[in-house]
């Protein structure tokens, strides 16, 4: 009883009741979940983009048939001599296995083709003369140019990332609006109490601070719940997406933990700042 009385006394505006501890946190939780999905989508698209851009740089691969695999050095020298070629490097068997793992799984005994990666001086150069020179020297050698496709995929990943960031900005905007509306409702239902505190000598920052602390806390709590729901959702999604990003399936380490951990404090800060602004704006009408 005594404890309850003190808690009440610390809340002279009655904000525990005026600002519902269900509606606002619930809305913020839903938005935090959306923000987590958008952030994870943006991170995933970014990883794909980097991977593919790297691929686009090594835009041409040269494959020697197994019976010619002894002539790797010769092929390398030939390629490095071509004016169109900036860099030519052999692909190590380890890297090869890693590239093929999502498609073939772990097959240590499989005979791997000998592959060179070329980067042309300019992505728009025609690889046909390189192909002709090579197949004259080493019969059966194949040149495959996929730079244009990889570049398009990277552009796609970039726009997916852009959309995800736009969704994130939208979620933040809606969160600010929701907090502003909730604050205004709280102020309206406590208008008399605010005026009494004001007349008794409470400062603007005192009154605005009481609202801001309460709303910041509710928003942070809601975001914590939203982030908690996001963890299993994202783990499931990243499990589904793993083959696409060519990685090993390790959903727990693939989650954007830092982003998730930042959601509650950021939501709390947004709530706090929005409430400060809305209440101070309202208080301007009092002398």
């Amino acid at each position, binding site marked *: 009883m005594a404890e309850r*009385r*003190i808690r*009440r*006394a610390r809340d*002279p505006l*009655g904000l525990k*009741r005026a600002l519902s501890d269900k509606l606002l946190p619930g809305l913020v939780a839903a938005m935090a979940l959306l923000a987590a999905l958008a952030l994870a989508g943006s991170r995933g698209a970014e990883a794909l983009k980097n991977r593919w851009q790297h691929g686009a740089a090594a835009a041409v691969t040269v494959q020697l048939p197994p019976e010619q695999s002894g002539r790797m050095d010769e092929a390398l020298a030939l390629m490095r001599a071509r004016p169109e070629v900036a860099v030519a490097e052999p692909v190590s068997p380890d890297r090869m296995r890693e590239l093929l793992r999502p498609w073939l799984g772990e097959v240590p005994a499989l005979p791997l083709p000998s592959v060179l990666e070329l980067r042309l001086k300019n992505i728009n150069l025609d690889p046909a003369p390189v192909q002709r020179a090579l197949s004259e020297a080493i019969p059966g050698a194949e040149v495959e140019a996929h730079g244009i496709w990889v570049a398009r995929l990277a552009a796609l990943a970039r726009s997916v990332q852009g959309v995800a960031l736009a969704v994130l900005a939208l979620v933040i905007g809606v969160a600010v609006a929701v907090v502003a509306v909730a604050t205004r409702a709280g102020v309206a239902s406590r208008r*008399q*109490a605010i005026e*009494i*505190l*004001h*007349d*008794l*000598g*409470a*400062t*603007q920052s*005192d009154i605005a601070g009481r609202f801001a602390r309460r709303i910041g806390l509710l928003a942070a709590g809601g975001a914590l719940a939203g982030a908690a729901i996001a963890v299993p959702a994202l783990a499931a999604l990243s499990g589904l997406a793993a083959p696409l990003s060519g990685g090993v399936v390790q959903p727990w380490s693939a989650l954007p933990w830092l982003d998730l951990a930042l959601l509650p404090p950021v939501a709390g800060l947004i709530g706090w700042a929005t409430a400060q602004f809305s209440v101070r704006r309202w208080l301007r009408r009092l*002398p």
Partner: protein
Amino acid sequence: MVRFTEVGLRYPSPDGGLGPEALSDLSFTLPDGSFTWLLGASGAGKSSLLRLMHLAQLPTRGKLEVLGQQVRADRRAALPALRRQIGVVFQDFRLLPYLSAFDNVALPLRLAGRSEGSLRPDVTEMLRWVGLQGREMSLPQQLSGGEQQRVAIARAVVTRPALLVADEPTGNLDSHQARRLLALLTQMNRLGTTVVVATHSEDLVAQFPSASLRLEAGRVVHHG
């Protein structure tokens, strides 16, 4: 000291502009430590004048000085500290309905940043002073009109304000309680507080003769 110089007050009108002057051409000085009755018929402007005095309202013209400080619209940041030196008994009490009598009285001390330990004896003593010992935990709705008014009075004086402003504080009290309250206010006044009490009870004024300020239709018609 409270000094009004050519003060006028207009309330906002419903159309968004300003209404007619509720108070006009107020010029008077209340010296430190004075006790002043504020008299006038209902609607004469007593409450409006007191609202100016305790800074719940700023004048629309003229100069206002309260407790030695100029009250200026462009210096609002200075007003809260000044308000905390003024005790107010509102005509409609204005207690916070979800706070106990104790917490309502403690509120000005908490707003001033007093520690919980040091405010307890003051609040208890003040509630005893207005005859509400044992009712500390009651909510306003559990108290009679007169008891609520006494909580409001205790809240007004608990900070030992330099200026005490009371708007018809005896309105809900029987004559015995009213005399007792006036004894409290004159006691505060003897301890150095400047007191202004609005009333339309000539009886009460006759029992506690003092300087008076009479308003009619928003103008001072008598001061002395």
